[in-house]
């Protein structure tokens, strides 16, 4: 290794490590804190056996919309976990009862006859008119009352307001629905994406009667349409096709819903099928896990973690510097490089993937201090070993590295394997721990190669290599003799 190369490697490493964390902090980025550190509320909801993934996604969408309507939640995290669980994390939520209600009841699906289609709620355009009770500020009806004889409900994109009648069919009348490509079904026989709803026997009969009634209205009239409503929002409002006999209605076993003009008819039909499946769920979601952390408890935990980390660092610094002298200083500066890269990675993951730093993650960081310091210790002990076997100081520094690095690599591989397995197999807090631990092992290898090696080399070749007690030579202990002292040959019989 040449001085120029060592210096260049070291400077680039320091610039990347310190520069990136500095830039992130200047940009106002900070690690995203998990629920347990900032307080908040989490629920795990579990759907019934056999719930399909699309249905779960629909439920997630509905929950998200409801949570956003609450307004007070900063960054809700709602995600599907495993086969049929939904994890709802609401950091900083204050009104827990309302939040629970919002995610607990995700709204019933219903089929309701359309009475009129307008641009704005009639309650707003005609304040003095005769309107249903319980309208909200936008003049819209309560989503939970599906049987109200008249209700004002928004379309999905919010562009229209449907005036609808009481539900003639609800989720329990449905078996579900599926999206399929039909060669003849849609667009006047030209083929296209359609949704095939499936009814229970009773539901099919209700559907037949209702569509018969709708068929009495002229083609093109809003009243010929039926609104498919989920959680107070009209997801779709297909019109009963021309030529359907008012006496017979639509045959529930042969009905298809065609998708109108759309950029992505396939996605749209799949969405509608998911809504039908969601509505057909026999039971709602069960609360499997409820967890709430008061904001003050979260702050206490964070404080405890930070203070413990700093105190630990201070004590370790004292120990390392006393034991390894200037080499200990190299290790402690290296720890800031390691910390910068590790925290940088966590911040980056938080910003891009929404990964949060939990208490388990913080403990993972504290644990990784030990892991990374070990890499220095392995190396320095090897240097001492080389030195005591009679090699001069500077060649010892060079000669010890490859063997030390190989050991570090093996050790980090085992820990990394452990972290990956944990991350894949475990749930909840263990995942956060596995993540920081896994990143830490990678960072450790990088720091060892691009910081420790050139750093130690440069220090050994500087004035600090030889200068007395605190120098690299000072850290080696007194002896520089090849050590095969005769006294140590202990012969026993």
């Amino acid at each position, binding site marked *: 290794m040449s001085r120029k190369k060592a210096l260049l490697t070291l400077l680039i490493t320091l610039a990347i490590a310190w520069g990136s964390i500095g830039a992130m902090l200047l940009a106002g980025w900070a690690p995203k804190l998990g629920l347990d550190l900032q307080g908040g509320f989490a629920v795990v909801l579990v759907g019934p056996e056999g719930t399909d993934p699309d249905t779960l996604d629909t439920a997630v969408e509905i929950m998200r919309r409801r949570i956003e309507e609450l307004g007070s939640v900063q960054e809700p995290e709602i995600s599907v976990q495993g086969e049929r669980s939904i994890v709802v994390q609401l950091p900083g939520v204050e009104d827990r009862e309302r939040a629970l209600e919002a995610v607990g009841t995700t709204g019933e699906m219903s089929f309701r006859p359309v009475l009129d289609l307008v641009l704005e709620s009639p309650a707003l355009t005609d304040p003095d008119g005769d309107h249903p009770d319980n309208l909200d500020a936008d003049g819209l009806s309560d989503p939970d009352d599906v049987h109200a004889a008249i209700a004002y409900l928004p379309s999905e994109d919010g562009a229209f307001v449907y005036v609808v009648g009481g539900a003639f069919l609800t989720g329990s009348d449905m078996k579900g629905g599926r999206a399929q490509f039909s060669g003849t079904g849609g667009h006047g026989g030209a083929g296209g994406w359609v949704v095939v709803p499936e009814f229970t026997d009773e539901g099919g009969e209700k559907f037949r009667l209702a569509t018969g009634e709708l068929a009495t209205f002229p083609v093109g009239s809003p009243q010929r349409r039926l609104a498919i409503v989920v959680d107070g929002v009209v997801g779709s409002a297909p019109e009963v096709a021309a030529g359907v006999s008012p006496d017979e209605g639509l045959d529930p076993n042969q009905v298809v819903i065609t998708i109108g003009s759309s950029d992505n008819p396939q996605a749209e039909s799949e969405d509608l099928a998911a809504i039908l499946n969601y509505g057909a769920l026999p039971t709602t979601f069960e609360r499997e896990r409820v967890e709430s952390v008061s904001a003050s408890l979260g702050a206490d935990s964070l404080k405890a973690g930070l203070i413990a980390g700093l105190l630990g660092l201070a004590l370790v610094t004292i120990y390392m510097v006393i034991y390894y002298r200037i080499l200990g200083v190299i290790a402690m500066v290296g720890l800031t490089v390691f910390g910068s890269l590790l925290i940088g990675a966590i911040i980056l993951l938080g910003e891009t993937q929404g990964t949060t730093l939990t208490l388990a993650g913080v403990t993972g960081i*504290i644990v990784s*201090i*030990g892991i990374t310091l070990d890499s220095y210790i392995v190396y320095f002990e090897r240097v001492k070993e080389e030195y*005591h076997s009679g090699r001069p100081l500077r060649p010892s520094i060079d000669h010890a590295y490859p063997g030390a690095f190989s050991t570090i690599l093996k050790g980090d591989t085992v820990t990394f*394997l452990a972290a990956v*397995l944990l991350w894949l*197999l475990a749930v909840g807090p*263990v995942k956060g721990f596995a993540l920081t631990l896994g990143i830490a092992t990678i960072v450790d290898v990088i720091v060892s190669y691009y910081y420790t090696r050139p750093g130690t080399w440069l220090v050994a070749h500087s004035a600090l290599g030889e200068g007395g007690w605190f120098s690299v030579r000072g850290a080696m202990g007194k002896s520089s003799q090849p050590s095969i002292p005769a006294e140590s040959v*202990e012969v*026993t019989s």
Partner: protein
Amino acid sequence: MSVFTKMYRGETHFDFVAISKKTLIVSAALVVLSLVMLLVRPLNLSIDFTGGVVVTVENEAGVDIAVVRSSLEGIGQAGARVQLTGDGLILIQTEALDAVSQDELVLTAATVAGTDVNAVTIDAVGPTFGAEVTQAAIQALVVFLIVVALFITWRFEWKMAMAALAALAHDLIITGGIFALFGFVVTPATVIAILTILGYSLYDTVVVFDKVNENVELMHDQYTYTEIVNTSMNQVLMRSINTSLTSLIPVGSLLFVGSFALGAHTLREFALALFIGIALGTYSSIFVAAPVLAIWKEREPDWIAERKRVERKRGGNKTVVTAASVPTKVETVPAAPSAPTGASGAAARAPRKRKKRR
């Protein structure tokens, strides 16, 4: 020269294998005791594994346990465990409850403690979710052990993998025994701690075995396996001590700050498990993994032959030279495979394991 000076210079010559014949007995006794302890007093699992509800609320009204109990009886929760903590909290733990009963419980707790409903902290786990968490944890552990065994077998050899697993089992069982003895609660955080312990213990063992393997290549035609292991352990001794100290210091401060100074109870069990485990992990890689390996390998025909040859070479009598006399690096021994002298199988097979060296 004092022992510490020798340690500082890496010039110690402890006969670890001989010492560990005694410590192995102690370890075995501790393992048996821990197993008995685990049977007599099963682990105190948190609700995360068993399912249940824990409600925590600040006791603003300053009521005593009897009042809390009677109000709980009013909502049919007579079986609940009620606890008043030193820092003025009421803890109520019940079996797993449905959503309605949970809400009822929260409301009751808030009323009796004289606080707002939203100030009540609730942690509720359904029984199936708890079972899933437990299952996931066990699954993770088993897969982890298999993969680690395969990795060590691949990088080193299967007997090292088994010795490492023996050390792991030693650490795990004794940690479990200590938890059972004191009735500490096992939480998911404790499980994390245990997995970390596994990592540490393994890391330590890998470092020792790496050194053993390296020394086998350098020393195989002059020393017995036990001597090589002894030399290796003397060489890594300071690393092991320093590493466990620098790992224990942060964890120790977590234990101290987390549990005593700031009262963050969630951290206590975690830090405690880590502290016990890291100390055990360091101990077991030196006094369990390596000796088990040495004793086991010494029984291999190749190494028996090697021992006899070494003894013959050293003068024919039964003199055993401890590894103490081995220089830390045998630079003069050529790394190139040398023709085995005599009928030594060890010399013949060791070069096969030689990896590319610097």
